[in-house]
């Protein structure tokens, strides 16, 4: 059963479509990420689900009932803001108890529930502190506890890691995902950070200009992007325009940037103009020797960036394009480093070339 459904949900500001007729259904307990650049409509979508923005048209169904026109406080939606929005004049305990107090719950029951959720997020010792006395990570846990204690049907997260430093962010990612799984709560997560999207989501919804470009698991989105935009937005990629010049059964010959290569693709027809994507980690480079293979090309190292676990090279292929290559800097894999201007052999395997049709 779908817990949340967006049916043709649209938000127009004058003639501008902030969100343009999007359809999405989220299963019970699913973690769905809205990913896209700023202005793509992801936050507008989230705020429509929360009830702060009234959709121009379309339906929003949460737990079987249409929520369009229902004010935020009657929606049972837990919301965590980018800046946490903790009430600065209330202690941690009062912040967390606020939602229950609004439900006019009994004092003893409130205390019990607050204690339980503070324990879950490991904040019971800090319950009497004021928000300003907490670190960023602790503040975020309070915001999470405050949203979860009302036992909402949906958890909405609006770039909740934006204000944390990198180590803490990685840590909170895992913590949040564990908690979400444990409570089995349907979650919509908004971010522009592809790493967050890839590492946390059951499904990713890539958005651009108010429209959904692609919905899929992190794996599907990364490996089989539906468009050049998706390919370019998630991870690093080499993207080229290509033309199919020859077909021999399953083998199709394509030409791009002066290079000719044979790939296997069922959909491709002769003279088709397509884009191809090659992920930098799927390209190998070797010390220079004579090009013996059709998939090997001569080139030289134009620049290199040391990134720790990988080394990123820009290689200019002879009579061809400049291509980005990520080499695994592993002691076990016997990685050989290359110097700038060194001549190398680039191996473009047909499996590495993904045609975007």
């Amino acid at each position, binding site marked *: 059963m779908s817990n949340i459904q967006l049916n043709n949900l649209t938000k127009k500001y004058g003639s501008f479509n902030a969100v343009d007729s999007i359809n999405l259904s989220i299963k019970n307990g699913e973690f769905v990420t809205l990913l896209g650049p700023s202005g793509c409509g992801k936050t507008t979508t989230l705020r429509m689900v929360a009830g702060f923005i009234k959709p121009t048209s379309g339906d929003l169904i949460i737990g079987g009932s249409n929520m369009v026109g229902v004010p935020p406080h009657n929606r049972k939606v837990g919301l965590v803001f980018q*800046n946490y929005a903790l009430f600065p*004049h209330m202690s941690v305990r009062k912040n967390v108890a*606020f939602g229950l107090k*609004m439900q006019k719950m009994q004092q003893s029951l409130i205390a019990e529930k607050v204690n339980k959720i503070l324990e879950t997020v490991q904040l019971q010792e800090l319950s009497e502190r004021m928000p300003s006395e907490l670190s960023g990570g602790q503040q975020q846990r309070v915001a999470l506890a405050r949203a979860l204690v009302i036992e909402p049907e949906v958890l909405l997260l609006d770039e909740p890691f934006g204000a944390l430093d990198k180590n803490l962010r990685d840590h909170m990612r895992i913590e949040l995902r564990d908690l979400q799984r444990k409570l089995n709560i349907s979650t919509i997560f908004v971010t522009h950070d592809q790493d967050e999207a890839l590492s946390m989501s059951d499904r990713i919804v890539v958005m651009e200009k108010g429209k959904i470009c692609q919905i899929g698991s992190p794996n599907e989105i990364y490996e089989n992007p539906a468009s050049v935009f998706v390919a370019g937005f998630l991870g690093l990629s080499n993207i080229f325009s290509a033309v199919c010049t020859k077909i021999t059964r399953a083998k199709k010959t394509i030409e791009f940037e002066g290079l000719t290569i044979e790939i296997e693709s069922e959909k491709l027809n002769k003279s088709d103009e397509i884009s191809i994507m090659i992920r930098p980690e799927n390209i190998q480079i070797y010390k220079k020797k004579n090009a013996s293979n059709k998939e090997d090309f001569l080139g030289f190292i134009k620049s290199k960036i040391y990134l720790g676990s990988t080394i990123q090279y820009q290689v200019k292929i002879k009579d061809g394009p400049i291509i980005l290559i990520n080499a695994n800097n592993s002691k076990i894999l016997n990685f050989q480093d290359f110097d700038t201007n060194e001549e190398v052999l680039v191996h473009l395997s047909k499996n590495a070339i993904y045609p975007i049709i």
Partner: protein
Amino acid sequence: MGKKLMSNLEGYRSLWPRRILVIFSSLVLFFLTAPLVILIIQSFTNESYLSFPPPTYGTRWYTEVIYSEDWQNATFLSLTIAIIVTPLSLVLGTLVAFGLERGPKKGKQTIQAIMISPMVLPHIVLGLGLFKIALQFNISDSLWAFVPAHLTITIPFVIVTVGASLQTFNTSLEEAARSLGASKFWAVWYITLPIISPGLIAGAIFSFIISFDEFIITFFLATFQRTLPLEMFSTLMYQVKPSIAAVSALTLAITAILTVVLMFRGQVVGGGKIIK
């Protein structure tokens, strides 16, 4: 070569502007406080005339003022007006500030300019206008005239102080409250108002003091009734007695105490509690 020159220049740069600033600030402070200090000293004279410095000292004039029925009545009227004006001004001004900050952007500037214009309009013009209206409704020389008249000049101050607090208020706090089950009203009540309380308190202080001190507009509206400033004025019309200095010193003391107390409270309610 360059290094030594630089350090010399830096020495001059850090010292002289600071000295000038200190001298200038001291002068301003002196000119602001000197009349008040002289007035307070004069009020403790034991003579029947004002002079500085007084030949003899005593609290004779304070006793006279405190036991004088005229001064008592005037003080009572001024306090009554200020006590009614302050909460009304706070509520109405806050509502306007919310309307301006949260309402449609179109026309906001114009409405704001009109709403706060009594701050800059000559009070004599306002007084004349209000006098006409009061005559029309036959309410002059009563609280029904004094209170609304004072509100016209106190509300703009509340609009400005509360408006400033609202501008820096993070509206996502209110949204957080609403997503947690608070209706719009309760979100403002439990979250927004406590957080903008420094602005509310400043607005209240301004309202009280401005109403308590108001002279020009009240002068137009009063016939027999006398507020404290009116009583001071009419006393001065006849003679310059040290009693006027004593009243001034007392008024000053009340205003100062009120300001300090409310400011301290404001800090406790607003920022102080957060830091503690």
